[in-house]
């Protein structure tokens, strides 16, 4: 089966004097597969997904998105991207944001009439009349996921999709991922919530400082009797110098009697 997205020796740095944010990342994702991209803060996960979405220019390596370059609009028409910390034009309402994005996706009138109310209901924003600027972070995150699935993508990229969601919202996102996977949609999930990744992803790659430390199916990465969190912590700690106890002294000091 042809991969939905394949990334080879991908490199990115933001300034010449900076270290590589992404350095030699390679992976491929097939239809119906859920791939988890894990790593500590600053490991380059968001840079990787932004390059796949055509939002950042790679400094090296190659990306094939549905057989084209990420900048190709035809390829991006099949992509849904829910960014981390999403935002939208501040003075629009949720329905207007979705109508705006439906226009950008080239959806016809019939599709809009059907998809927009259903997507809003899924995101729990169907009764919401306020402007986006008055939304909470969780509401923006829900709208971010809503706009990502509106075009019925063949590849859905979710960058920390549940970071600002309540437990009910998290459960909805998990159900969404399972349902999309079953219908052949490829999922690329960036998340810190390792238990969640363990539940929904078939394969994972663990990144640190722009490098892939380990990649494979869940069974390959997490040996019998261990969990993903243990493996993650072990790999990440091994890749960086041992960390001292950095608790501030005013916390550890005993109070004067």
């Amino acid at each position: 089966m042809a991969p939905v997205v394949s990334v080879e020796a991908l490199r990115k740095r933001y300034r010449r004097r900076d270290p590589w944010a992404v350095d030699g990342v390679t992976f491929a994702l097939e239809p119906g597969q859920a791939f988890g991209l894990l790593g500590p803060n600053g490991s380059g996960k968001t840079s990787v997904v932004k390059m796949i979405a055509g939002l950042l220019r790679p400094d090296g390596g190659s990306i094939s998105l549905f057989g084209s370059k990420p900048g190709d609009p035809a390829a991006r028409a099949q992509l849904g991207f829910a960014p981390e910390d999403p935002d939208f034009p501040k003075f629009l309402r949720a329905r207007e944001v979705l109508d705006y994005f439906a226009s950008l996706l080239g959806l016809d009138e019939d599709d809009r009439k059907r998809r927009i109310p259903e997507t809003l209901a899924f995101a729990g924003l169907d009764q919401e009349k306020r402007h986006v600027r008055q939304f909470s972070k969780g509401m923006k995150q829900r709208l971010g996921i809503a706009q990502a699935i509106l075009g019925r993508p063949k590849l859905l990229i979710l960058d920390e999709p549940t970071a600002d969601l309540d437990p009910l919202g998290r459960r909805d996102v998990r159900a969404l991922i399972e349902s999309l996977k079953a219908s052949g949609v490829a999922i690329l999930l960036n998340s810190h919530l390792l238990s969640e990744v363990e539940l929904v992803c078939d394969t994972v790659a663990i990144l640190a400082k722009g490098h892939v430390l380990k990649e494979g199916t869940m069974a390959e990465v997490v040996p019998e009797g261990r969990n993903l969190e243990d493996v993650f912590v072990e790999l990440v700690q091994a890749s960086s110098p041992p960390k001292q106890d950095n608790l501030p002294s005013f916390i550890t000091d005993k109070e004067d009697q």
Partner: protein
Amino acid sequence: MKGTLAVARYTLLDLSRRRILLVFFIIGALGIAIIGTGLKVFSSTFSSGTSFGPPGTVSDPAKVNRFLELMFVTDLVGALGLFALLIAFGIGMTAIYHDLESGAAVAIFSKPVARLAFTVGKVAAALAAMIVIVGLLSIEAILFGLLFGGGLEHTLAVEAVAQVANALTLMLIVLALSTWMNNIVAAIVAFIYNAVGGVVVALHSQLASGVLGDNSFLKGLINVVYWLVPHQLTSDAPRELVKAELELFSTSGQTTADLTQALAAVPGPSGATDIIWWAVVVAVMATLVYVAVRRRQV
């Protein structure tokens, strides 16, 4: 095309709900209403027996009314220019900058919309918003002008077009700069560039009228710099207003030649070269906006 229209439509909707533009519009509309009504009340109450201009020249109520109308329109020409600039800054600082800085551009650019379509949509919406606001203020001004008998509608309409054209250049500069830097810094840089441009154009005008003497180095320098800055387009409004005032205050001893000589000092309407240069500047600035948006990583 669909992408451009969608960007334009929703940018316009977003801009129309921004308080800053609404505040500019309300201040402008109230200002015109207050000046117009105030002058009308003044003319109705005090016109009989009051004289304007050189001692004893205008005491006829019809002439007083005409004089006040000229005053009103002269004030409006300045006010419309000021509001067009404020609106250009207001729109230029927000139309693209907020999408880029808030992160809205991340979701927008991940959709199948070309950066060119996005830029064209944004500029079209910004221009449409400015035309609507300045157009409404101009219509209000023309209606108030009718209180004084009218006759200067055409002058005001052409002046409004010139003001929108000048504000468009400034707005494009702010739009282009705000994709590279903070929008307040962009506005300050654009303001300075616009002010320098105004000084250069004024110096060039002085040079053309021979006030600056015959220094060939100075002439060459000003001529070169003149073609590096946007030229403010002018309508025939300033000349028409001065002409109307001169006619109102003319005495029997003054000839047509005197009138023509006096009018020569007032800047005339922009010629074809100025309009072509304006179009070139607009095209260059619009291209800069596109290049800045295209290069922008979000």
